[in-house]
């Protein structure tokens, strides 16, 4: 049985013709063309032509019934979501996490009351979706009511998803009548209960209804008779499947380093610590996605260097280069995002940028552990997730696939402690595996239908990097 999987990215449209035989997926053909922004179907058709499944001059419409086609689209880098919550550490954080887990790009976050200036920002630069939350069920209603009123009085055209205090839902709905609006379950019904799933589902549906309009995607949906998936959501779901079916992977991280952002996924069996450690903050989900908007190999190359710690200079010197040359390269590729490394030096700069993105994103994704001295002795307080036991980091993305494997990635120095003196709970001695043929997004598309085969396909395509890429480091305090 043949399958086609296509991922319409922001720069490239990639496709593969896959064959499913004896429960195993094999890649029969691959193709990649620049994404055609005006009409996405043009690039899609070009990929199908290159895969040899469409004859020259045949209409897209004739493709449908013979081979199932699975499509994902990153839709201009993901749909933008403004997350509105009440308290920054509580519902605002829950809203941010929910938007990210729905494959969104969080454009802004707001806490407490939306001010006139906040509304103006939203009017001038409207996100695709506003995720309005606040209050646990039966809890605070004042802020969400008032925020709804302010949004109702504004000219903000965005879809508003209400996922706050259940008690205020009817009022909020009445208030926002006439605006594009959906009510769903509270993302934080109780302080110790995160409930992102219903809001995620709504965001996904909105993605399909609103974001795919124009650019020819409706035509694609008509032909394929099923909806394309937002790429980050497809990958998140795939991470879930990999965690379930890919027994060798156990707990793992998956990092997608792109031109503009670094997407970080982690899958943990037990995201919360045992009783010996005090956990603080909203509960961690088993699968988590974070997006670093300032870490990327092209559009955000300069901000990678701004974010890098002093260890980068040592790495640059160790690689036999000067920091100034790397900075000049970063400026150059930021201005010309289509640039590909043209010589050995440039390839080395790309590797340095790549490893910096991965190490900083790892540090940001990981939780923190601090020691507190109590009358009963030392205690540990944890916030966020503990990745110390994670052995594998899967690196994916177009650049990772093109990396010359003869060079190992420069050591990724993760610092053991952050600015506040807390230990960073990053993987201690992980091994990085590279998605050599960049199959993750393509396998993710078919994973819902063929979970085990898609898992196997990606597994068999992972190549271990030559060296352990993160300096093993000791945490200043022994783990609890």
């Amino acid at each position, binding site marked *: 049985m043949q399958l086609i999987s296509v991922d319409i990215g922001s720069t490239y449209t990639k496709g593969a013709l896959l064959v499913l035989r004896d429960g195993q997926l094999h890649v029969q053909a691959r193709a990649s063309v620049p994404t055609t922004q005006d009409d996405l179907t043009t690039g899609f058709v070009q990929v199908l032509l290159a895969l040899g499944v469409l004859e020259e001059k045949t209409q897209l419409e004739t493709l449908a019934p013979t081979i199932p086609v699975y499509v994902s689209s990153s839709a201009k880098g993901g749909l933008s979501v403004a997350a509105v919550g*009440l*308290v920054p550490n509580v519902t605002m954080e829950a809203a941010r996490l929910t938007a990210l887990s729905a494959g969104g790009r969080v454009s802004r976050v707001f806490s407490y009351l939306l001010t006139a200036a906040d509304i103006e920002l939203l009017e001038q630069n409207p996100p695709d979706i506003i995720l309005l939350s606040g*209050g*646990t069920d*039966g*809890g*605070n209603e004042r802020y969400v009511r008032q925020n709804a009123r302010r949004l109702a009085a504004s000219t903000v055209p965005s879809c508003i998803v209400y996922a706050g205090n259940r008690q205020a839902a009817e009022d909020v709905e009445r208030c926002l009548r006439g605006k594009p609006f959906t009510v769903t379950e509270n993302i934080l019904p109780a302080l110790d209960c995160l409930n992102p799933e219903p809001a995620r589902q709504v965001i996904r549906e909105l993605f399909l209804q609103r974001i795919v309009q124009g650019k020819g995607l409706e035509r694609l949906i008509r032909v394929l008779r099923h909806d394309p998936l937002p790429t980050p959501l497809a990958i998140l779901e795939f991470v879930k499947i990999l965690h379930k079916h890919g027994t060798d992977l156990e707990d793992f991280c998956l990092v997608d380093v792109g031109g503009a952002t670094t997407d970080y996924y982690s899958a943990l069996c037990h995201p919360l610590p045992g009783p010996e450690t005090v956990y603080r903050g909203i509960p961690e989900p088993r699968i988590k996605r974070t997006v670093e908007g300032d870490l990327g190999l092209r559009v955000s190359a300069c901000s990678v260097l701004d974010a890098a710690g002093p260890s980068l200079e040592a790495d640059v010197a160790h690689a036999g280069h000067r920091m100034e040359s790397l900075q000049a390269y970063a400026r150059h590729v930021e201005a010309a995002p289509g640039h590909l490394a043209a010589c050995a030096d440039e390839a080395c700069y790309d590797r340095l940028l790549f490893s910096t993105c991965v190490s900083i994103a790892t540090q940001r994704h990981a939780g923190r552990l601090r020691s*507190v001295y*109590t*009358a009963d002795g030392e205690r540990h307080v944890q916030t966020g997730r503990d990745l110390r036991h994670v052995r594998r980091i899967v690196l994916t993305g177009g650049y990772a696939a093109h990396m010359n494997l003869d060079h190992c990635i420069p050591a990724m120095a993760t610092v053991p402690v952050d600015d506040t003196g807390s230990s960073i709970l990053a993987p201690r001695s992980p091994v990085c595996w590279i998605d050599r043929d960049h199959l993750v997004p393509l396998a993710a598309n078919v994973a819902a239908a063929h979970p085990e085969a898609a898992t196997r396909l990606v597994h068999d395509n992972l190549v271990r990097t030559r060296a352990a890429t993160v300096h093993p480091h000791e945490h200043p305090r022994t783990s609890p």
Partner: protein
Amino acid sequence: MNHPVIVLGVIGADCHAVGNRILDMYFSSRSYHVVNLGVMVSQDEFIDAAIETGAQAILVSSLYGHGEIDCAGLRDRCIERGLDDIILYVGGNLVIGKQRFEEVAAKFRTMGFDRVFGPDADLAVVDRLLRQDIKRRQPCS
């Protein structure tokens, strides 16, 4: 609102968990909606939880004798963050050494706590006082 919402927790670097569990069980059985933050809770965590859950009262426990340091400024911080008239109770072994309870209670009342309880407080009394205080603060409607 039938069930009053109360936030419970042990403040500061105090990890005495047993009393906290007992308070949780007792007040839950008395039809309160208990939001229990457990041990080692910071002032801001109490306030965050009270804002989100719309709590009427925060019940702070302290067992290890550093209560005075940990609780200082909690009322001001509540006001600063918009909880103008939340009920604040504190109880436990609040100070080290032998100090007369009346003095300790006076000290904590000056700090802005509505009521102060010693380690041997009768929870039925706390319950009765709490209901009174909540009723008194409710806006007439």
